[in-house]
């Protein structure tokens, strides 16, 4: 697992309010199906901005951006975050 994934999972653990263990999630698991609410996704996004020192543009403020850990990673990479 890469460093970026570890940090994404930490953010989800702290701000995602998921009713299951974040560690049990696979990268492509649907976070909304596992209990991520719209409001929690707002917190996840703001926390990701803090952790990775990025700003999500309006075009990424959509449900699909936070659908899975893989989707979040992809969005962060598109914002210039390095995977390793």
């Amino acid at each position: 697992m890469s460093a970026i994934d570890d940090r994404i999972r930490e953010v989800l653990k702290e701000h995602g309010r998921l009713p299951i263990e974040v560690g049990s999630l696979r990268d492509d698991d649907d976070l909304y199906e596992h209990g991520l609410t719209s409001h929690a996704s707002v917190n996840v996004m703001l926390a990701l901005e803090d952790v990775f020192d990025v700003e999500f543009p309006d075009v990424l403020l959509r449900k699909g951006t936070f659908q899975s850990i893989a989707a979040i990673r992809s969005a962060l990479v598109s914002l210039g975050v390095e995977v390793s």
Partner: protein
Amino acid sequence: MNLLVGIDIQPIDEVESSLKTFGSRYRRLLFTDRELETCGDNSTTSSRLAARFAAKEAVLKILDIQDVVPSWRSIEVGGISDCRPEIILYDVAAELARLQGIRDVFVSLARSGDAAVATVVASAWSQSEGVSP
């Protein structure tokens, strides 16, 4: 005419926690200047903002969203008090409503100790009914 109904519930403590953690970034991402002014900065702010977030989510449930998602700030809960609130749509939200033939949107807000609830009812008219969207 079709009636569209959306409902959403928002735990108030989650909004309170977000306000403490993210402050103005959270406020500015989700709420318009008018909403923030209306809700003030006092002991009822969290519950009133929670009701408005629930209203925005309820509106999103009645809109036929495809690729472009309306921002939360494009859905505004207006009105001076929570007793007679109104929904005002801007930008993408307004355009989606227009395409669906939505003419009127009504909202009701409720707050208890733990949660805020919003229900939205909208009337949508088709072109065949003689009302162009």
